[in-house]
């Protein structure tokens, strides 16, 4: 019978459950507690019999979590794949080497979903005990419950593995798609760029206008591909931040310069008021995130409006605010603007010109730094986007 004990298929099934050595789980404790009550024994145990030991997944009476296979009754249950009732270990010469304090044992095998016996559910007593048919029937009933719990854990684990596989596939897909999209975009942008600049020949006025429209949209597509890739990598935690000491004012100035053209075209003034704060950040990414916040504020503004950028050090960290005086966002929709491809007002996407990913990206960058990006708004009065970055980071920069 010991052949079944070390059958490779059985041992793989035990390993696949991935439960041995796990900390206590309530779901198994509920089974053993019920068992101890129903059989009226001090010890109710749920075990897995692995290749080299008996792992106790749950016990009502304490004691070791790992028993030697050689001396455990559970080994016999698994090897024989059958119930085992031992009324008095002292009266049974099979147990001369058995575990000291236990005098009575009643155990049944537990099977995993494919039918392999992986462990036991058993009751033990420190006194001899004449097991009844009712005791055995109760054990069998409870073993079905225990098996359901084992199967549930198995299903959850398989789902986690499945999710990991899906995440890996998604990463691969994104990397392939981004390359496959960038290659035609390279030709498209290149051809349109040369055409618009008329370096290979003059265009009639309508042709120049068409080339300009085509180029702008190729640029927009290229930006979108970049942002989708960035966002995926940030949310997947694949981005390693390159933190360096930066003056907050420098980062803000760079970001403002990036949106200067857009602001001028929109007739919007961007005003900065940033304190002398040293931060410890990935400068390129934070500037990029700020650029998105500013671009968003400029898009929300009307000609003649002012966008204010304020930055200072507070007790909670480095605080940055970007305030516009645009149409505002209904408070009920505030969180939604940080989602992908959403805008405060979905009715006029064309006029906005953003990719719909800017705020989601900005939030990912801020969160990667351990900070928070939030929005407050009043319809008709404008929106304030607030970035709070941990101050600890700034202090470290000074020390370093």
């Amino acid at each position, binding site marked *: 019978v010991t052949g079944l004990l070390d059958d490779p298929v059985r041992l793989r099934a035990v390993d696949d459950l991935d439960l041995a050595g796990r900390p206590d789980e309530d779901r198994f404790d509920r089974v053993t507690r019920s068992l101890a009550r129903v059989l009226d024994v001090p010890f109710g145990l749920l075990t897995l019999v692995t290749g080299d030991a008996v792992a106790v997944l749950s016990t009502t009476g304490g004691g070791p979590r790992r028993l030697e296979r050689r001396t455990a009754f559970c080994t016999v249950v698994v090897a024989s794949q059958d119930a085992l009732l031992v009324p008095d270990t002292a009266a049974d010469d099979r147990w001369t080497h058995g575990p000291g304090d236990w005098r009575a044992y009643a155990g049944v095998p537990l099977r995993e979903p494919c039918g392999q016996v992986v462990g036991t559910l058993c009751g033990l007593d420190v006194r001899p005990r004449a097991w009844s048919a009712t005791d055995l029937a109760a054990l069998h009933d409870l073993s079905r419950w225990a098996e359901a719990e084992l199967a549930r854990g198995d299903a959850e684990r398989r789902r986690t593995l499945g999710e990991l596989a899906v995440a890996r596939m998604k990463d691969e897909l994104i990397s392939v798609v*981004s*390359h496959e999209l*960038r*290659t*035609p*975009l*390279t*030709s*498209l*942008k*290149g*051809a349109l*760029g*040369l055409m618009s*600049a008329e*370096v*290979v020949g003059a265009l009639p006025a309508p042709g120049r206008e068409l080339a300009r429209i085509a180029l702008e949209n*190729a640029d927009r597509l*290229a930006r979108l591909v*970049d942002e989708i*890739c960035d966002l995926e990598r940030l949310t997947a935690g694949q981005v*390693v931040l390159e933190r360096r000491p930066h003056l907050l004012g420098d980062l803000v100035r760079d970001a403002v310069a990036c949106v200067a053209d857009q602001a001028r075209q929109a007739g919007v003034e961007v005003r900065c008021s940033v304190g002398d704060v040293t931060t410890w950040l990935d400068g390129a990414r934070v500037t990029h995130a700020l650029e998105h916040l500013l671009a968003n504020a400029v898009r929300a503004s009307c000609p003649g409006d002012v966008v204010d950028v304020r930055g200072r050090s507070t007790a909670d960290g480095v605080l940055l605010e970007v305030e516009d005086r645009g149409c505002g966002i209904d408070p009920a929709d505030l969180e939604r603007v940080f989602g992908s491809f959403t805008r405060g007002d979905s009715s006029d996407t064309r006029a906005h010109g953003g990719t719909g990913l800017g705020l989601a990206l900005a939030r990912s960058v801020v969160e990667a730094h351990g900070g928070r990006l939030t929005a407050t708004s009043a319809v008709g009065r404008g929106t304030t986007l607030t970035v709070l970055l941990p101050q600890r980071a700034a202090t470290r920069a000074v020390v370093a």
Partner: protein
Amino acid sequence: MTRRLLVVDDEPDVRAVVRLSLEHVGGWQVLDADGGLAGVDAARCSPPDAVVLDVMMPGTDGPATFRLLQSDARTADIPVVMLTARVDRADREAWLAMGVRAVLAKPFDPMLLPAQLREVLGWPE
């Protein structure tokens, strides 16, 4: 003296656009090759002043092509600039560590590409 550049890329449209940009905006002479081995052959026959090299190509890819160029005395000193749709920082750093002069991103602006090349290659205006 007019500079000569070798463009290695497996995509004919990308080759055409890079060629036009370098010829018309940069004012340079351009040779091109549709793959890594063809590029190495072209560089050996008639060493250019610089190589603009794609990364993801079937068969001999950009890094492999670069190593072949490095391993031959006739081509070892030619500066190589990679032009790639792959933007991974780790890749970029690995290529720079191999001795690639610079890594430029695709898509690129054809009106700015010659100036960017001039800058990374240290060529005067």
